[in-house]
């Protein structure tokens, strides 16, 4: 129960808003309903697949394809898996935790996160439809090198020891 204190506090705050401003509170509840529906729709298959991946795919296999020494193949796979993903960015973090546990290297992990955030294929469809092909393609062409650049900078900015700590922590998260 203690772990759920913050969500409970916000529910209380919405209750308080309702006392003064019924319309805003109703809108907030409406927003929350939409976001929660999305979350509970998107997350279950992701977590189910993660559980299966954790149990069935051996670490050596993941290391071979996406670990140290996986080179361009690893980068390519990180892009493909991230781009094929469904759901908001917060869905990428638990996947990253299992990837860390299985020995995926840090650079590929960061590329995966970057790809999940911006080069998702279904999202691109929405973007083309709403903002036009030129806008969407320009962004895509800038984003691909941008994601690699950010991933590369992060591997330089974070020390080896800190990366090791993040990997150790992933054992508790996945």
């Amino acid at each position, binding site marked *: 129960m203690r*772990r759920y204190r913050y969500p409970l506090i916000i529910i209380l705050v919405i209750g308080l808003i309702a006392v003064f401003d019924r319309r805003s509170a109703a809108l907030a509840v409406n927003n929350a309903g939409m976001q929660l529906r999305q979350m509970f729709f998107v997350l*279950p298959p992701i977590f189910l697949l993660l559980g299966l991946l954790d149990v069935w795919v051996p670490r050596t296999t993941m290391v071979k394809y996406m670990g140290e020494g996986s080179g361009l193949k690893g980068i390519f796979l990180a892009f493909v898996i991230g781009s094929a993903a469904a759901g908001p960015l917060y869905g990428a973090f638990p996947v990253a935790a299992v990837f860390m546990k299985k020995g995926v290297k840090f650079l590929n992990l960061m590329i995966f996160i970057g790809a999940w955030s911006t080069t998702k294929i279904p999202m691109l469809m929405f973007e083309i439809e709403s903002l036009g092909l030129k806008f969407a393609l320009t*962004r895509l062409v800038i984003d691909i090198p941008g994601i690699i650049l950010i991933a590369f900078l992060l591997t330089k900015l974070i020390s080896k020891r800190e990366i090791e700590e993040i990997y150790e922590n992933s054992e508790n998260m996945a």
Partner: protein
Amino acid sequence: METYIFYGLALIGLIVSFQKDKDKTRLALKKSWKSLENILPQLLTMILFISVLLTYLNTGLISRLIGGESGWGGVMLAAVVGSITMIPPFVAFPTASMLLKSGAGYMQIGAFVSTLTMVGIVTMPVEMKYFSKKMTLYRNILAFLFSLGVAFLIKEVTG
């Protein structure tokens, strides 16, 4: 839509796994549930918080802030708003298109869309649970700066 594909994959995976090894499948399910429950409080906090925030930060207010004449100030504002908010793509892109029609500039919309997808201030507590504080901050700051570059290039191409 693509989520249905993932449901299909998960279902097939579970059936195959169950036929091969019941105990391993049970372990997989236990792991799935444990890792979901592990992060559930942070996810709920994030969603409830953003719901209250979006009540006050609506499209009308945003389009007034990032008009086509708002220049780099508007770009910064758009980038900040995009960083704070978290909207699913099927709402986000039509919103961006609406903002364009109601007078926002391409450069500002570029910054808004880019930070919306790459930078997540409300998701930071979740991100920090998986990565470190420092790493989360660095990733979000770099993505923010990069988005300003995206805004500039979008303007060069579309303008």
